[in-house]
């Protein structure tokens, strides 16, 4: 028997083996617990996903509260204590440039 014939024979035997394997392993009957166990897993995943979102939401709320407290405790008092913020725009401008204005008056208009 030449090489090609041998290969063909082996190929056919392998096909037969696969077909027998298919018959030797029929589709198994699912157990009575299959559906309840599957739904339990689906539910567990849902709860897990919800709890992940809940943790995220809690973290976001905490971060927002912390930022609000920071702004309220540090930034607002600082802005309020600044005299420039209490004065009107013209007053603030005058206080900022008052020395320039006096120098300008002393030097006269050229």
């Amino acid at each position, binding site marked *: 028997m030449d090489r090609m014939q041998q290969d063909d024979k082996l190929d056919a035997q392998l096909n037969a*083996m696969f077909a*027998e*394997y298919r018959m030797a*392993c029929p*589709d198994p009957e*699912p157990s009575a*617990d299959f559906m309840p*166990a599957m739904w339990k*897993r689906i539910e567990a995943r849902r709860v897990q996903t919800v709890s992940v979102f809940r943790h995220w939401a809690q973290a976001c709320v905490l971060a927002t509260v912390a930022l609000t407290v920071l702004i309220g405790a540090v930034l607002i008092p600082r802005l309020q204590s600044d005299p420039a913020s209490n004065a009107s725009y013209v007053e603030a401008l005058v206080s900022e440039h008052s020395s320039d204005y006096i120098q300008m008056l002393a030097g006269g208009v050229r």
Partner: protein
Amino acid sequence: MLVEFELIERARSGDDSAFNQIVQAYRKRILGTISRTIGRPEDVEDVGQEVFLRLYYSLDQLRTPEVFEPWLYRLTVNAAYDYLRRQRRRQESRMSDLSEQQVMLADAAAGGKRRDEEQRRTKIRELAESLLGQVSEEDRILLTLKEVEGLSLKELEKVYRVNENALKVRLFRARQRVLKAFGAQENSEAVAKAGLGSADDSE
């Protein structure tokens, strides 16, 4: 298709009873495919539940009900692949956990009850699994779907979302490797039958 498109649409829109009906229609077929792909009867249901769990949470990504079956096969392939990869990482063997004496006792007990047909089936299963063990997990699954499950190249194309030629090349290579192992097995059996290569000859 084992179910109506309308049922798939209902499941997609969040109807759990429709999803339940789909699982009931497909579970046996999917468990069969998993059983022949992973070769471990004790873990088949676990992997099967994983497939349907993934289906439940990905059903809204399904474009049309027409592609439902390839989609389900794709999920099955992925779950089986994940399982086989995990198994390889663990590198555990159920038999290796037992002592030699326990294995012999288990074999003897099973052998006493087994009929000839059962023994033949077991032999075929062992042979097929050892041959499929010669290729990577991906190729094992692909080869099983093609040669054992009988999926056509067109169907595999939809499952794997690659072109037919790429599949043909992969299948050819995988089959050649299995064929080589099968040939070696056949030769060694022929040699054993002929009484060659035995311990007596070496004297």
